[in-house]
């Protein structure tokens, strides 16, 4: 009986003492913070294991609220917990029109002229600085995987023509490839915008054909067929999406001699190469 009593006494006195201390401290020392912090911390497992790389759940929730980390980086919580946190913070937004990365070049291996052989560090950005990587067109895709490496979602793969094929399912429009491309060939476009200009070279006529067989030579046929939605800027067609009529008709592409403007239903470059009867012969 004695021992039980001592135990109860000691534990309750310790508990009371520290309880009071903490309560007082909580009252007088409270620091104003984002109220979401406490809620998020509550939702986390609270193991303070540090496995997420943050020192404790509190710090992790700060990172979550600040948008630095993603809920899934908590390795302890169950998928349901993570989903709850994500929806609380609104990290995963509702259903939106899916946006994917599109490449403004179709001049892959064998289509665009290679004037010299590049040898060295296999990286677009590096090759771009060495005589333009040996590609005749100094605006086109170099095909050395910078975007593929930059993609964290396994959404970009190179096809046999060394052009990046963006997987429409995997692409999250994170902008990484846009930043990675030294020639700024990627653009994020809603999937519903199907009329895509697959050329970036401001060349005209024979100058254009001299470097690439699938270039835009600035012939303006698409502009003529584009119901006024297509204008030419810098020898390249520019599609006007501003009035919301994003389902423009594919007929603008029909008379394109090289296929530089195309109607893309799903991913780009899925079919190997469409044969165009009028394609000019180019020394490749």
């Amino acid at each position, binding site marked *: 009986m004695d021992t039980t009593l001592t135990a109860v006494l000691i534990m309750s006195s310790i508990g009371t003492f520290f309880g009071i201390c903490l309560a007082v401290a909580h009252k007088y020392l409270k620091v104003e913070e984002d109220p979401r912090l406490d809620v998020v911390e509550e939702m986390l497992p609270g193991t303070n294991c540090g496995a997420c790389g943050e020192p404790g759940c509190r710090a992790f929730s700060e990172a979550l609220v600040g948008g630095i980390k993603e809920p899934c980086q908590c390795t302890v919580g169950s998928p349901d917990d993570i989903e709850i946190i994500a929806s609380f913070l609104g990290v995963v937004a509702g259903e939106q029109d899916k946006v994917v990365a599109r490449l403004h070049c179709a001049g892959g291996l064998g289509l665009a002229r290679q004037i*010299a052989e590049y*040898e060295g*560090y296999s990286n677009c950005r*590096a090759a771009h600085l*060495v005589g333009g990587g040996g590609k005749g067109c*100094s605006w086109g895709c170099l095909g050395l995987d910078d975007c593929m490496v930059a993609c964290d979602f396994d959404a970009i793969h190179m096809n046999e023509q060394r052009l990046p094929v963006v997987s429409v399912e995997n692409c999250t429009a994170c902008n990484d490839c846009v930043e990675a491309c030294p020639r700024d060939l990627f653009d994020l476009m809603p999937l519903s915008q199907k009329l895509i200009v697959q050329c970036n070279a401001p060349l005209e006529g024979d100058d254009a054909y001299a470097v690439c067989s699938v270039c835009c030579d600035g012939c303006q046929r698409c502009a003529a067929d584009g119901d006024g939605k297509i204008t030419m800027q810098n020898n390249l067609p520019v599609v006007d999406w501003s009035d919301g009529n994003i389902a423009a008709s594919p007929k603008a592409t029909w008379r394109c001699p090289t296929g530089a403007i195309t109607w893309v239903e799903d991913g780009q470059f899925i079919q190997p190469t469409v044969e165009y009867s009028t394609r000019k012969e180019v020394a490749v």
Partner: protein
Amino acid sequence: MSVAELVGTFRNGVHPHENKEQTENFPIARMAFGKIFTLPLSQHLGAPSKSIVEVGQTVFRGQLLAEAGGYVSANLHSPVDGKVITIGPRRHPRGDLATCIELEADPFSTQTINASPQNDPMNMSTDDFVASIQDSGLVGLGGAAFPTHVKYKLPEGKTCEHLAINGCECEPYLTCDHRTMVERPEAVVRGITIAAKILGAKKTSVGIEKNKPDAIAAMQEATKNLDDIEVYPLKVKYPQGAEKMLIKAIYGIEVPAGKLPLDVGVVVNNVATMTQFADWFDEGLPLIERVVTVAGTAIARPANLIIPVGTSVREVLDFCGLDMNTQQVIMGGPMMGMPLSSLDVPVLKGTSGLLAFTEAPKGHQNTLACISCGQCLEACGYFLNPARLAKLAQARRWDELDDFYVNDCMECGACSWVCPSSIPIVQLIRTGKGALRELKANQQA
């Protein structure tokens, strides 16, 4: 006793095989005009020039073709009598397609110039002088092609104590400056006199590496009666021709990072630029031709040639006997020059050499892992840590490159030259610099 005589060089650096014997004893010759001249509007650092001619227009040698497109820009003159046939995209030596003026040469064009000397530079105001140099289209002839007049416009409160003349020519193979000093020392001295007068520099130092004893002798002979010009023989070491390294070698001063030589009271110019001063002010010859070293294993008749700017590289190389099995052509020196993707590109104002090789170096294929041997650190004249920079760039950790002062790197190539694992350090650094610049621009936006 100056610092230079005690030390005679900067710290670190490398000494690649010089390979200058191919051309160093051949006098400068002239080449016949080619048929087509291509003049890119952007041949220098800064804004491109603006064309003032039209297609079909007839032009004469020395006529202004394009005006400076801004303050940091230069004029462009016709190197030949002829007709403008196109103004449009043509391949630039850097590999891309850039706007060029294409001239068809008049077969009867002479190589003399129908121009009159400028006003006496000794009696000019500084502003007139600067304007006059800009008119001449003069850019730094050492390789970087920085418009020369900008250096002569001293900002408020800055004075120039010393004029340093760069006769190092530390790049292997190149001997154009060497031959210029041997053959035209009086023109160099005349240029120096003009430059020193305008800058108000009290003393002029001409730094020449010791592997050019005849150039040193010629320059000493030409300056023996001039107290304010001194010739400094320097230890043979690369990259001594870099502005800041030269200042360190001659004066023992480190130019602070991110500052210009003028901040320590020095202006650096190339010897070829000095002869151009003399030519412009005494004869009225704008920068329309320059001395180019043509050498390399694929060249049958290596030479130093006076070549009109805009001449096709193919014509120059064919003139010197290009081997059928050429693998690689370099514009500039082998350490910092640029590789050509095509021979149908023009010689530029900043082209100091054209080197053609039948066999490219193997190093680029045999890249091994970095073993942290530290030899690149001992090669870097800027005391950077190239090994670390290359690793960070390879891991695409661009933002950290800034902590290691990647932007101080001048890409001289000493680290890549020395690397036992053949890592393309310079290329990685260059890639990193570009990515870092973009990253910073994105952050600001």
